[in-house]
């Protein structure tokens, strides 16, 4: 049967804690078609703060531990059940009724001791709530002295399934340090697993580790005694440039050099390179306001109106050039004013 297969798997993997989550995840994935799995999926997709698959895995791992313990301590297991229930009542903080219902549903779905699983789940939820409160209050946890700034990251089941590998690697890192002395206690395991998917909030905030000595950042001595560079400086700069300017190794470098010198255009070709006409179209076309210096009647006015008509149609000159054109004519006709008055 599947349950026996599961139990044998658990026993085999009980020795190495690293593979338990892997085994659990694999077993979960293998049993995708069973109604149990479907129920688990439904529960997992429920919008609650804690994801239950993690709980199940923890539960199964703790169950494997418990099997080992149960072989040693036979009668104590039965005693732990009422203790668990009393613990539930003793804890001041009430759990979410939805969570309780979900926990009971999950416990009923599993093939193990239903009461025991339920109590375990509730206990874990309690611990979860406690640790979240602790984090919210800002209390540091003894295990995490070295890594001071960490926050718990809530994950949806979809995310979790995608990140199992990362989590396992993190577990390996952490377990390498601390697995040996603290193997038996389930709480430490849970808290460690719980802190599996943590992420660094920021690098600068928080308690300093005093690993590196802070270097005093002196202000740059930007004030130069000599304001303009001397001729020797220029010569030196030229020499340096001449030495560092190696001939191009390939065609690309040659093209780069040419582009810098201005021999080669920049691609994609911009038709308006070097031409910055910030004036609007009305400044190009309506040039009559520049004709104020001219007499209002006569051949000169007629002539200038023709000039303006031609300039308004000219797209190649800038507004400044057109204005200069008109001003030149103004100056010219002023010089010839005596001549014009004779006529």
């Amino acid at each position, binding site marked *: 049967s599947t349950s026996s297969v599961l139990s044998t798997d658990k026993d085999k993997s009980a020795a190495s804690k690293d593979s338990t989550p892997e085994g659990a995840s694999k077993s979960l994935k293998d049993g995708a078609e069973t109604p149990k799995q479907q129920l688990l999926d439904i529960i997992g997709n429920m919008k609650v703060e804690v994801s239950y698959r993690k709980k199940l895995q923890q539960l199964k791992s703790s169950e494997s531990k418990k099997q080992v313990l149960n072989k040693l301590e036979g009668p104590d297991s039965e005693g732990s059940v009422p203790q668990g229930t009393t613990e539930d009542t003793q804890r001041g903080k009430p759990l979410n009724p939805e969570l309780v219902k979900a926990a009971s549903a999950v416990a009923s779905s599993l093939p193990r001791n239903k009461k025991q699983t339920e109590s375990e789940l509730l206990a874990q939820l309690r611990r979860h709530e406690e640790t979240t409160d602790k984090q919210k209050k800002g209390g540091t946890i003894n295990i995490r002295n070295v890594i001071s700034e960490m926050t718990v990251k809530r994950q949806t089941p979809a995310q979790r399934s995608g990140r199992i590998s990362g989590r396992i690697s993190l577990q390996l890192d952490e377990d390498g340090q601390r697995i040996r002395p603290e193997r038996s206690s389930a709480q430490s395991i849970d808290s460690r697993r719980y802190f599996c998917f943590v992420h660094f909030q920021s690098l600068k905030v928080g308690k300093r580790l005093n690993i590196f000595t802070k270097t005093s950042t002196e202000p740059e001595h930007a004030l130069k005694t000599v304001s303009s560079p001397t001729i020797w400086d220029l010569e030196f700069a*030229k020499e340096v*440039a*001449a030495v560092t*300017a190696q*001939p191009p190794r390939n065609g690309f470098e040659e093209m780069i050099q040419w582009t810098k010198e201005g021999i080669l255009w920049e691609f994609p070709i911009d038709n308006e390179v070097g031409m910055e006409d910030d004036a609007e179209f009305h400044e190009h076309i309506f040039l009559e306001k520049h004709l104020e210096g001219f007499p209002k009647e006569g*051949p*000169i006015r*007629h*002539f200038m109106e*023709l*000039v303006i008509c031609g300039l308004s149609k000219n797209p190649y000159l800038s507004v400044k050039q057109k204005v200069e*054109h008109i001003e*030149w*004519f103004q100056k*010219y006709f002023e010089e*010839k004013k005596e*001549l*014009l008055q*004779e*006529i």
Partner: protein
Amino acid sequence: MAAAALCWALRAARQVLPSPCPRQVRSYYVDWRMLRDVKRRKTAYEYADERLRINAIRKNSILPRELQEVADKEIAALPRDSCPVRIRNRCVLTSRPRGVKRRWRLSRIVFRHFADHAQMSGVQRAMW
């Protein structure tokens, strides 16, 4: 005055580049005729606007004739090299005044030389 002109010509003839350049560089104009052509181009560029405006006054049926005659005299007073008619499109490499293709600014002999050595991009011997 001759010395000044010579100095100016020498300065114009010698194109000293500020930075060392690994490519082949021509530091002199090919001959004096080319240099004169270069001078004419420069002055024509400087006086282009004035010539245009004075010609606009001259080639006119609106303004009085006296004004136009004055303009004639003015334009004749400008330096002779400032008129664009005196510019000759010489070959850039050999300064040949005749047989120069405008697109490449090269004389026919130089063009043929480079085209045969496959140094003209997109140019091929015609065969049909």
